[in-house]
């Protein structure tokens, strides 16, 4: 049976990091920080916002971490199944990753 430890650890780490970013964003906003927002696709503005402790930028980083975490967990799952010799299950995990990649392509093309 394939281990589940790496997948679980990846998910937990992702949730903790994003929750910390979200909590910081909320505290900064409540403390009267810069309330102006920004587009999440503008990464350079987000970087500037992080340095300036802008709430939206920290909330944006937390959101990105949350969106990336399931994909990283699927990579971990692929590795766990591959190491356990279960090629079919590893292939299924890769298929799901390809669907997520297709989502990125659709977003870019649109």
């Amino acid at each position, binding site marked *: 049976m394939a281990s589940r430890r790496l997948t679980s650890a990846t998910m937990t780490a992702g949730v903790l990091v994003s*929750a910390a970013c979200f909590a910081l964003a909320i505290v900064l906003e409540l403390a009267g920080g810069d309330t102006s927002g920004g587009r999440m696709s503008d990464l350079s503005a987000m970087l500037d916002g992080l340095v300036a402790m802008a709430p939206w930028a920290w909330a944006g980083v937390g*959101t990105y971490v949350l969106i990336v975490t399931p994909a990283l967990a699927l990579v971990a799952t692929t590795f766990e199944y591959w190491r356990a010799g279960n090629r079919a299950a590893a292939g299924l*995990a890769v298929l799901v990753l390809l669907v997520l990649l297709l989502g990125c392509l659709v977003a870019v093309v*649109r």
Partner: protein
Amino acid sequence: VSSVLVAFLVAIGAGGFGSLVGIGGGIVIVPLLTVALGHDVKTAIAASLIGVIATSLSASPRFLRSGLVDRQLGLLLLVAAALGGLAGGVTAGYLDGRLLTLLFGLLLVLVALQMLREILRPDQPPAVDETDQAPGLSSSYVEPTSGEVVAYRVRRVVPGTLLSFLAGNVSGLLGVGGGVINVPVMNLLMHVPIRVATTTSTYMLAATAVASSIVYLDAGRIDPLLAAPVALGIIIGARLGARLAMRVSQDALRLAFMGVALVLAMSMIREGLAP
């Protein structure tokens, strides 16, 4: 009062209530954000999807470690569910906000009716037949309450996979988890024990919601200052709800949900039909 704080408190309530009645926070948070707080429906759906990812990721590690998730079945269904989620996200971009509001109102009515059916006539889970030799994926899990190993065979994989596409599609289109469809499909159609069906569904939600979130992100629909309090609030609320669930009557909660859902549904349907 800060709008971020209001969204955070509302999300705690939605996550707690959703967890108490076993339907997740998404189906509660979207109507509250649109009807009560006046957010645009697509922005509310996008924020709810981030909440769905957070809920799934925070609950799944415990389920994975305890061996309650049928991960291979989950991955198989995820291929279809993620494709459905992606299609739902793309479709939502082309639909008018009022139509989405109307569809969400109708979904709320359906969920309320399903809940009424469960109160009046609880689903009888299919019995596990150890001597059954019909083809299907075999698996087992250890029942945590008794320590007993429960073997089961997954049936009707093809229709189940197609219905997972539908669940993903509803999730991407309306920002709900999809468990409302996934759990009965796995339990009643595919003969997966209810405990495994609920945990496997929770495991599947994150990747399903990511597929549609990518599209919402690219369309500029994710407002980080709404997504952050919603995601954090839903996680906290769901944990509080899980602790409270054992102390309150499930039927009373379901009746309360039905009342709230129908009021919100009427409001959303009226808004969706407004000229």
